[in-house]
């Protein structure tokens, strides 16, 4: 007898197959997503110093009472000028560490004599509020060795960083946690 090649699929069978297909697709998607999660490296928020325009919002927008953003000194670029515009108020005649001569509103920069005419400037991290005032002075008049960075021992790595949302320079980026900082030379480190 000739086989019936155009055998009709019953409605029941069709629905069954559809259900089975949907289930398998769902399983596939879930499995794929899980695999991607396992493979995906954890990411953190960071500031691209080349984009930061020192708008000041790092100091005011962070969910923490004192911002997780701090100033850091990239000594490979500079950090030894006698007349440092990141340290001194513009127009300062007396190049001494007197409070009235200093630019930082919280006194978070330490000036240490090295040898004439070189001084070393270090940031006292716990005093820094991340306002970026020193970074602006250094970027405009110096060699740009001062820069702002999100400090990961403080940052909560919020799902939606509030500073990133308000950042006037669009400088906030997600980068792999194992290279959590960005230097001015453009390298993650």
């Amino acid at each position: 007898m000739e086989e019936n090649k155009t055998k009709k699929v019953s409605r029941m069978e069709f629905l069954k197959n559809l259900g089975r297909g949907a289930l398998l697709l769902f399983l596939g998607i879930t499995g794929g997503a899980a695999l991607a999660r396992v493979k995906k490296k954890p990411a953190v928020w960071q500031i691209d110093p080349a984009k930061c325009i020192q708008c000041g919002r790092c100091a005011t927008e962070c969910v923490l009472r004192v911002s997780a953003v701090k100033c850091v000194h990239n000594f490979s670029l500079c950090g030894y000028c006698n007349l440092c515009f990141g340290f001194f108020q513009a127009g300062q005649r007396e190049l001494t560490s007197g409070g009235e001569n200093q630019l930082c509103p919280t006194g978070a920069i330490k000036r240490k004599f090295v040898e004439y005419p070189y001084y070393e400037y270090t940031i006292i991290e716990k005093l820094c509020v991340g306002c970026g005032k020193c970074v602006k002075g250094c970027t405009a008049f110096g060699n740009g060795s001062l820069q702002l960075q999100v400090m990961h021992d403080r940052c909560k790595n919020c799902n939606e960083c509030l500073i990133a949302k308000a950042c006037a320079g669009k400088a906030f980026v997600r980068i792999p946690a194992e290279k959590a900082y960005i230097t001015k030379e453009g390298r993650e480190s």
Partner: protein
Amino acid sequence: MDRKIIFKNGIWILLVAAGLVGGYFMASSYIPGNTAVNEVKSDGAGNPALPENFKYDMAKLKQYDPRQLLYGEETKIKTGLKEPFGLTVNKKDGRVLVVSTEGMLVCDGAIAGKVAALPVRLEGPGSVSFGFAGELLLAGRDRVNIVSGTIIGFGKKGKGVGEFKYITSVKANAKYIFTADAGNRRVCKFDLKGKYLGQIGRKDKAAGKNFVIPSPHMDMDFDSKGNLWVANAGLLQLEKYSPEGVFVSSWGKHGINIDEFIGCCNPVNFVIDGGDNFITAEKGVLRIKKYDKTGKFLGVVAPPGTFNEKNTSIPLAVDSKNRVYALDTIEKTVRVFSEKGY
């Protein structure tokens, strides 16, 4: 096995695979928190305003008295070069040369000219000038070329004798060629054929001088008596050396006032005109000013706001009519300024 069963199972496997791939890409493209960021709100829209003592007022530093403006802009020349770095004027024939690593623009005074090929290949930006006998001194980052009928080249990368790290100026008088090397923070002296004769700078104990150069800016020029002037930018001073290269004197003071040099390292460029006046260019607050031969402030050539703010140096030259040529390396133009009333 029945073909139909193989076919059916194949479809199921394909569905799972499609799901896996789709799910993987969906999950990898999702970055938590990366949605709806960078939406800039104005301070009026709820951002707490920054207290006054946290603000840095650049506008204040750019103020000047318009009565101090001595020059007006005569013309602007488009160079057509991608990364121009050097500018010079041949005072004998009025030719203006703008140099980049890919070619040079030759102008007849302030009249725009054509881009020509370089007589010699340059590795990285350096400097350009005309020597005492009209020879062209063309320097790349670490090599100097003397171009006349023939080309003599000397120097290579390094910090040893006769080596360079970052040449920022090359100038010659009747007897010597001097090179300013910001990378090695020294000025070196050569004879007119490129033979090393000595150096002025950090290791020169005899001269007792140190160049404080925190950034790649170190310019030089000769006055009418043949003395060599060097910008010791980290000390915010211009230093005078005899034609033989012995330190004589210096002038310049730091500060934000118009007659002072601002920032950590200025002036980044300068040139001496026919009347032995100094024309200086500063970074930070980009401005060009004029001082007499004793260092007394005379007035402003180009006030703050004239140049693209991204410039970190403004190479300068003057012609026999004391017109000032200034290279805007970002806009890739030469701005020509002449004294008002001339």
